[in-house]
């Protein structure tokens, strides 16, 4: 079928952008990745919908994310070439802020996510060494949307290395965002750290701590 070939060729043409993934990630079995996402998703939904104060739920979610996401690899991928230009202190501070931003962005929206449900979608496909696991996220009174989890193997364990919402990769988009902040501030990584610090405190303030 010529159209399929053409579509595949076009998709391959778009791949180089995606291929810059962390070299550390090893091939991961599709079935294993699916089971992993199912389990992690269930934990996350339980933590978000569970009782307890926002602070308690945030602790739970943070623990799940630290376990399930390759925070280090994703953080480095996003900082890209600026990772090597940053001083060790800046690198450490960046990682701390990056993790905090991930968790705060999620916990700031616990209210919106009340009653969230998710189910496995139809397609599970390989993308180079990683596996894409498709899920359908449903919230009350909102149209369902499709979320792809990119799972790689890091240190022998499956880990989430990217989240792709309706075709938009979180790590590629964030990489563009951070890189724009740095390059528009004279190439200084410290400018990004200031902006991230500012954002974290705003998120915390909105949450009422």
């Amino acid at each position, binding site marked *: 079928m010529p159209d399929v070939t053409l579509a595949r060729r076009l998709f391959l043409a778009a791949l180089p952008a995606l291929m810059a993934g962390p070299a550390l990630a090893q091939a991961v079995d599709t079935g294993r990745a699916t089971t992993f996402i199912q389990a992690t998703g269930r934990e996350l939904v339980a933590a978000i919908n569970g009782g307890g104060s926002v602070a308690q739920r945030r602790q739970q979610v943070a623990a799940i994310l630290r376990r399930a996401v390759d925070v280090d690899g994703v953080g480095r991928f996003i900082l890209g070439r600026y990772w090597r230009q940053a001083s060790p202190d800046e690198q450490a501070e960046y990682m701390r802020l990056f993790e905090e931003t991930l968790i705060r962005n999620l916990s700031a929206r616990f209210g919106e996510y009340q009653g969230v449900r998710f189910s496995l979608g139809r397609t599970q496909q390989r993308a180079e060494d990683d596996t894409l696991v498709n899920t359908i996220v449903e919230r009350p009174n909102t149209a*369902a949307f*499709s979320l792809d989890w990119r799972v790689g193997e890091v240190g022998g364990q499956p880990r989430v290395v990217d989240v792709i919402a309706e075709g938009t990769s979180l790590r590629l988009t964030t990489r563009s965002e*951070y890189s724009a*902040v740095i390059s528009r501030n004279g190439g200084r990584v410290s400018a990004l750290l200031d902006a991230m610090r500012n954002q974290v405190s705003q998120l915390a303030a909105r949450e009422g701590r």
Partner: protein
Amino acid sequence: MRPPRPPLSRLLAPLLGLALLGGSLAGCATRPPADDPEALEEFRATNDPIEPWNRAMYDVHQAIDTAVLRPVAVAYRAVLPQPVRTGVSNVLSNLRSPVILMNDALQGETGRFGTTLQRFLLNSTVGIGGILDVAKDLGLPPHTEDFGQTFAVAGVEEGPFLFIPILGPSNPRDLAGFAAGIAADPFTWLTYGNRDLADTLNYIRAGTTVVSTRESLLDTLDDVQRTSLDPYATLRSAYRQQRAREIANRAGTPDAPQGLGTGLGSTPSSPQP
């Protein structure tokens, strides 16, 4: 006798002029020095040589959006219940069918061509002029297609990134595709024997498309404004990723047949509960 004046294309001409003017007047983003290959590579990958101009246009867009587009979209959401809004969006999608059909054909996508044709026939009749998407329930999911995508399949490069006020993120290829889509749309030229009526209907359609599209993007764009350290950079990256995905016509990722074909969104797509 006045020639027909499709409102969207009348809007397009000054916007295009503005964009082209920008390219020549505003100068270019500073190209990194040749001895910094990583910076050069990033410059190429970002594909935004007239970034200062684009950012100025983004600011213009944001001002219009804050003053008009977003408030209108918020009011639209507040006044009309979801089923009515879905009906409106379905009608607009249905009106886009002829253009989608043409592009399915031009890309040699026989399966998708059949789907679009059946959808149009079913939804226009059983679906009461497109208000109900009965075809989707019968296993004919919607998809989007436009001339920008067809140009891409034919090997046309996207060209430098452009941000056009009101239309949003784009590039010369997609902008040309947008214009071609208006020109090729039979509904642009149908006069029903009454040119004024046709003009009015085209205005209503253009206006409704903008409002309905903006409403569908409310949560997403609010989110970008709230969480991004540089919303312009985020939108630029997201647009280019979305287009790459739409062009690839990858299986298992259905998307909505609405939107302007410029990346200014498509209605909430994909799997319904």
